């Protein structure tokens, strides 16, 4: 039960009742996330500049160290801290509830910070450059695994606080009917997180024991199978979380409502039910596993998790189009899109994230995850090219976008440099799209990932990559500079606004549609009469055609290699 000591404030913009303990925890987790983004982002820049053969700034051992730390800091620390903040927001704030067990949430936070710092310190000592995946028999210092385990336990505790909050909100009847769609998406993310973090514990605990000498052998194939149940499934947490963020931003900036609650919620549910045995995508060219196993687990025969994303790919822009048309932007196919609030960084970041995630990340992921086609791409730069489109252009850009709403609403500070905020999503998106495309291009030419020197200057035997590969790596370096600039603009603005920004009095302008919706249509959705989305239909048709063409082009490439069986 809520006690008198539990304090709340009423948000002047949304009218939501905000629990102050939850607010402080959201702030703490968001700030930690940004700190790790800064560190991990700089490491990423140094990696990209080293890959550019003409620049090649880091020596080999530093390159492998930086690459290990880059993966850990951005893929794990930045994203999971931010996701914890989103979970608290989607539960306590959106449901008008108090947060369950704030003390436990602080313990979770502390564990995550301790774990993250421990692993970083161990990596920086230099003898644990095993990459984020740490495939045995390559062995790191015990502290590397211990830090990861502490981090995972902390994250699991935070997920527990989220579920507890849902129970409290239901019992104390802080909302009516069903939870909002965004909260539903967050629940999806949290359920997947439990599976993910448990898999992490199952594999990292024995690996830790192996690193201290208590277990004699870790089978490398078994390790990969279980490790990727964490490594890949956790990307499904990101997808659920950033799709929830897309819906949230569309709602907050345009008053957009899902076309159909049923369809959007079912699409989220598909992520949980058909989260493919995600390890399979990473084991397609591994010995010792049958083709039947690979084909079935990579698709469950129907690709229903892919279907979930394709549904969101229509319902999210469809919701935007519907809201815009109701506002009167009904001319032609795309007036709704042209007249969208492109100057609002939250909207711009969200829409760019949606487009880049679908076209670059989504298509390349499914193609690369096709059993036979994986032969052309496994462990080449194509793989990081793909996941930078999903995790950075998709998740990170969406998280950056919602920050522009979180700072005024939760931190109650005005954005200090609004012009900089306006440009930031575009610069970051151009940079990250370039990184993805050029790494995929280099991968298509056979350039390996996690490789310090494709000129093989120290090697006994040589191989000359085609000049196009060098061009791709140079363009990748330039794109990384653009992305780093976009990242710096984000971090500087957020840190400055939070530390020195003017306090917000009254309602927040950015978080409200420029033109309010006519009162008559507010609240009427899921109703067939009001849906007209021809522009979205064109967009998804273009998407599907690109998908089909690119898919079959890769089969064509495959048919040109040596016959093998």
């Amino acid at each position, binding site marked *: 039960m809520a006690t008198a000591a539990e304090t709340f404030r009423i948000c002047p913009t949304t009218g939501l009742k905000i629990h102050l303990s939850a607010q402080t925890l959201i702030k703490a987790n968001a700030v930690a996330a940004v700190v790790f983004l800064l560190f991990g982002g700089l490491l990423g820049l140094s990696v990209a500049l080293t890959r550019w053969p003409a620049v090649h700034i880091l020596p080999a051992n530093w390159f492998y160290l930086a690459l290990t730390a880059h993966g850990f800091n951005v893929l794990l620390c930045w994203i999971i801290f931010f996701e914890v903040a989103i979970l608290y927001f989607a539960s306590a704030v959106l449901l008008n509830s108090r947060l369950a067990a704030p003390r436990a949430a602080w313990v979770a936070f502390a564990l995550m910070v301790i774990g993250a710092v421990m692993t970083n310190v161990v990596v920086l000592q230099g003898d644990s450059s095993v990459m984020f995946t740490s495939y045995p028999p390559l062995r790191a210092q015990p502290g590397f695994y211990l830090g990861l385990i502490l981090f995972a336990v902390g994250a699991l505790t935070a997920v527990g606080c989220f579920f507890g909050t849902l129970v409290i909100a239901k019992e104390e009847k802080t909302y009516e009917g069903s939870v909002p769609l965004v909260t539903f998406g967050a629940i999806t993310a949290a359920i997947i997180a439990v599976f993910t973090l448990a898999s992490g514990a199952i594999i990292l605990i024995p690996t830790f024991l192996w690193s201290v000498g208590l277990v004699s052998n870790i089978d490398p194939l078994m390790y990969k199978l279980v490790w990727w149940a964490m490594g890949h499934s956790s990307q499904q947490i990101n997808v659920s979380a950033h799709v929830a963020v897309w819906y949230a931003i569309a709602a*907050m900036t345009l008053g957009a409502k899902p076309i159909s609650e049923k369809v959007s919620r079912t699409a989220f549910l598909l992520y949980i039910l058909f989260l493919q045995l995600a390890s399979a995508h990473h084991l397609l060219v591994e010995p010792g596993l049958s*083709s039947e196993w690979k084909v079935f687990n990579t698709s469950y025969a129907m690709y229903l998790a892919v279907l979930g994303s394709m549904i969101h790919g229509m319902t999210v822009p469809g919701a935007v189009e519907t809201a815009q048309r109701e506002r009167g932007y009904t001319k032609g196919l795309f007036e709704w899109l042209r007249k969208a609030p492109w100057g609002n960084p939250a909207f711009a970041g969200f829409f760019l994230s949606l487009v880049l995630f679908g076209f670059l990340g989504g298509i390349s992921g499914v193609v690369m995850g096709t*059993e*036979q086609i994986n032969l052309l791409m496994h462990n080449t730069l194509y793989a990081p090219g793909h996941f930078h489109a999903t995790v950075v252009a998709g998740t990170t850009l969406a998280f950056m976008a919602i920050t522009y709403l979180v700072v005024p609403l939760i931190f109650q500070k005005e954005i200090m440099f609004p012009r900089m905020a306006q440009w930031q999503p575009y610069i970051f998106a151009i940079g990250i799209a370039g990184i993805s495309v050029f790494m995929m291009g280099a991968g298509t030419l*056979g350039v390996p990932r996690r490789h310090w020197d494709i000129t093989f200057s120290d090697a006994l035997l040589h191989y000359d990559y085609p000049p196009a590969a060098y061009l791709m790596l140079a363009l990748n370096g330039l794109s990384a500079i653009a992305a780093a600039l976009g990242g710096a603009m984000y971090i500087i603005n957020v840190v400055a606004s939070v530390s020195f920004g003017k306090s917000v009095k009254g309602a927040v302008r950015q978080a409200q549609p420029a033109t309010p919706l006519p009162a008559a249509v507010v609240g009427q959705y899921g109703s067939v009469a009001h849906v007209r989305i021809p522009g979205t239909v064109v967009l998804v048709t273009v998407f599907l055609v690109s998908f089909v063409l690119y898919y079959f082009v890769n089969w064509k490439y495959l048919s040109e290699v040596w016959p*093998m069986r």
Partner: protein
Amino acid sequence: MAISPPRERLWWKQPIHRVELIWILVAFLWGIVMFGMMVYWHAFGKHNLSNETYKVAPNEYYAKTEAMVSKYTVREEKGIPVVHPPPGSDVYLMARVWAWYPSLEFEQGQTYRLHLSSIDLQHGFSLQPMNINIQVHPGYEHVLTVTADQAREYSIICNEFCGFGHHTMVGKLYVVAK
């Protein structure tokens, strides 16, 4: 809005718009096509990764490789033996930090049983410029049946990180016209 509870309490009873239904159906069918392609390729395609794998101790694999090297070596390059095994035979390629051992010479148009394994860490077999990529594990012997259809020099790059000398790990595979 998506950030507030659904206005219709019985949202699951609302009808679905026709456009959404069509898209769901199209996307679903596309998923079935993609699944079908993988199965089809196993039946009719000529490029499928072999499932033939054996457990093997690193020292056993080392011995098998050495036996082949001593039998079929035709020359040396920078101290690395180049092996020309008879067509159709079992060929052993051994990965270790940081070399592919030995270098191989195949005859164009001939088929070989190519064995892959590692005696220490995981490595990545990446045949360039063809761009075929296969993971190599210690303890597992993976047997591929390959047909070398073009006469030229190929390089084998390691594309799984295997320690600080990873980027020096390059091997050679020559295909010679017969």
